[in-house]
């Protein structure tokens, strides 16, 4: 566990607050992806150590631990993320800890939402609190966890001009499944990666 997070610490460069996009040749994201996958593979065996990492003096380390705990959904992690939500100085850690509470619980979401909305001025944290309350402890789909556990990191960054587009299968918000290869010979595809853009 420590070795995994040390690797992440070494490669994941903290950006100044004024910058929002990593350099085009940044490779830290690949380490982040690899470490997250390996944390998923550790599964329950890593939960105790991840809970310990919530107390790390490195904010990005606490963030990754909170995120992984939310996906792993282990009941031993009910209380520690709640403590992070209440006391962490770094809003992104509070956001991930709130997401974790939405999946593994620890406090009734509605009362948690009311309590934190009163004391946490950060709009992003409040957005996630509303989502956690709406989610009401619905766990992460086990297939989602398996998808990352099975992910072959050699596939990372393999899309390139004039090369075959890497195939994928994803489900949309209405539950319909789309496989890229199904469009071959029939339609072109314009693939747009976004965050919440409508």
């Amino acid at each position: 566990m420590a070795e995994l997070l040390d690797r992440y610490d070494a490669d994941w460069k903290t950006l100044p607050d004024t910058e929002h996009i990593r350099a085009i040749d940044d490779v830290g994201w690949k380490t982040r992806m690899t470490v997250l996958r390996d944390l998923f593979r550790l599964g329950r065996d890593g939960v105790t150590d991840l809970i310990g990492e919530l107390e790390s003096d490195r904010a990005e380390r606490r963030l990754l631990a909170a995120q992984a705990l939310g996906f792993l959904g282990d009941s031993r992690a009910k209380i520690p993320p709640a403590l992070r939500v209440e006391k962490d100085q770094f809003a992104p850690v509070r956001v991930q800890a709130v997401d974790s509470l939405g999946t593994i619980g620890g406090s009734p979401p509605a009362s948690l939402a009311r309590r934190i909305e009163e004391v946490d001025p950060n709009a992003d944290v409040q957005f996630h609190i509303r989502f956690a309350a709406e989610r009401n402890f619905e766990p992460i789909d086990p297939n989602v966890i398996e998808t990352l556990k099975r992910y072959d990191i050699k596939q990372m960054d393999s899309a390139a001009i004039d090369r075959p587009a890497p195939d994928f299968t994803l489900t949309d918000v209405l539950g319909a499944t789309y496989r890229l290869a199904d469009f071959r010979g029939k339609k072109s595809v314009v693939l747009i990666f976004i965050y919440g853009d409508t």
Partner: protein
Amino acid sequence: MCHGQVARSRGRLNEFEDLGARLLIVDPHESLRVKHFLRFAGARVDDLHVPMLADPVHTVSATYGVAFQMRIHAEWSNRPATFVIDRAGIVRYEHRAKSFDDRPKPDEPLSVLKRLNNS
């Protein structure tokens, strides 16, 4: 929160369809969360006309080289990016944002599709 690239593309959906193309949108969150956000933004989930695909553990985003590269709303999200894939399944165009606002207007992928159709 919304840059508007998707809204602008949806507004010209007929042009994409006339050129034989399908728009697919990928968001790096669980489906539940994408729905929550869409409702928060005032959109009707059943009236999008474009598939909003959920990539909750970033695997497709990582394969396309965009995962965890933009900080937005206290999260590390996808670098905004657009790819055009032709009917043979070959990548013919890519645009990877170098800043938050660095997104192609719909004219750009549309012109790529026209060129592909004429070649």
